[in-house]
């Protein structure tokens, strides 16, 4: 099992796609930073415009923490899309090249192999988020410096620099759960669809559907919030002024359960299905 995991990670490390994906994530960050550099002041100007009648402002809000928050927003669509394309190829490329059959001709248990693939994909996703986090923190604080964070979530919430840093770290951690969920879904879709192109389309479609259903009221009352499309933005709760730790904990736990559920379905289907 350990050997299989090492083998899958080695494959990921060696394939060019992996580095293109990391490069794409870094490029997204750079684009956000550049656009924030040119447009950030104007956005803040608009945001605080009607407060200027009553207040003077002392201090700078266009700082590293605001930039980190903007980068975190890219977790909505861009980053999971890139991650899903790469991680789904862990299984679909094997189907396409026939290497799955070759591997299973060895003394390898089917469920060990698929578990190794899931784990490799999850490790890769975690690695991408860590790279994204370290690089964004580095660039944002170096270029824009530290300062208070302002976020609009139904109310205009201000956080002091230390508090903002803490919340951004928590949000990255919670965002990682969402990314791990999408990764698991992409592998499961790969198992079901086998073909890379079909899986990419299905992954993108799944992402779009989740994004669309985020605001739909299913009429289930409190249970509405327990459906997985509603849980992918749990990280955003760290920017509510008053933190509801119970809700954050339950939402993250539910997302983890969905991740296991999709993974279990994938493992079951893979074990039952004929490899050919």
């Amino acid at each position, binding site marked *: 099992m350990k050997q299989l995991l090492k083998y899958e990670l080695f494959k990921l490390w060696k394939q060019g796609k992996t580095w293109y994906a990391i490069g794409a994530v870094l490029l997204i960050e750079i684009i956000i930073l550049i656009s924030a550099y040119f447009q950030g002041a104007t956005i803040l100007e*608009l945001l605080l415009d009607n*407060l200027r009648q009553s207040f003077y402002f002392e201090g700078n809000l266009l700082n590293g923490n605001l930039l980190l928050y903007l980068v975190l927003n890219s977790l909505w669509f861009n980053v999971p899309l890139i991650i899903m394309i790469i991680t789904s190829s862990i299984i679909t490329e094997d189907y396409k090249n026939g290497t799955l059959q070759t591997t299973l001709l060895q003394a390898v248990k089917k469920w060990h192999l698929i578990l190794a693939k899931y784990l490799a994909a999850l490790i890769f996703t975690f690695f991408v988020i860590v790279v994204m986090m370290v690089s964004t923190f580095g660039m944002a604080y170096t270029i824009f410096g530290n300062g208070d964070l302002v976020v609009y979530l139904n109310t205009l919430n201000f956080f*002091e620099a230390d508090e903002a840093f803490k919340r951004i770290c928590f949000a990255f951690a919670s965002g990682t759960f969402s990314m791990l969920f999408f990764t698991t879904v992409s592998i499961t879709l790969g198992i079901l669809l086998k073909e890379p192109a079909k899986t990419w389309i299905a992954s993108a479609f799944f992402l779009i559907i989740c994004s669309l259903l985020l605001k739909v009221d299913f009429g289930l009352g409190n249970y509405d919030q327990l459906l997985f499309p509603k849980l992918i933005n749990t990280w955003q709760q760290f920017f509510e002024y008053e933190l509801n730790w119970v809700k954050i904990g339950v939402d993250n736990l539910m997302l983890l359960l969905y991740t296991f559920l999709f993974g279990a379905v994938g493992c079951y289907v893979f074990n039952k299905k004929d490899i050919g």
Partner: protein
Amino acid sequence: MIKYLIIILISSFSAFAQEVDQDLLFIKSRMDSIASFSAQLKLDLDVPFIKMPTKTAKMMYEKGSDITFSSEDFVMLPKRGLDFSLNEIFKYPFITVQRGTEILNGINVKVLNIIPDDSKSSLALATLYLDIKNKRIIASNIITKKDGSFDLQMKYKTSKDILPQNVVVSFAMEKLKIPFNFMGKDTEIDRKKLKESDSKTGKIIMVINNYKIFKIK
């Protein structure tokens, strides 16, 4: 007949031409005796659509200049309500109209209306509540030409203090207009709530401590 008419006219003119209230002038002279001061400021914002932790800043004043602030954090400071020297009121000629006395927060106060006599003044009308016993202002209502109106409530640490320790500035605010590209994806736009929040009353609660006052010798 003409003689009587002239007497009536003269007496009515003198009724309109009011002098500046002596108590107000005395308070102004007390304020004028301050050459400069610095103090530590603790700010709390009570605005329905803004959530901000308590902020601290240092305020500095030098005679003839506006009050300046410095802070390591981002702070929102009230545009109005920190004019302890009454410079804004005394900048241009004005008349005062006495509105009698009343009891405000258990203190016997003289109520004065300040009406600017110069079109350049940013003030439209001010109502001051003077604590005659301790010779200081404890409340005011200021109506400006451009910046709306606001109320001030001031509390002092001791009966001798010229500068307040607690200041509450209340003001009307327009609804918040948020650019859409700044909204989080899960931000709900409650139109009813937005309409209701057309104009809200905001409050800034300030606690001013560690005054270092330098008086004119």
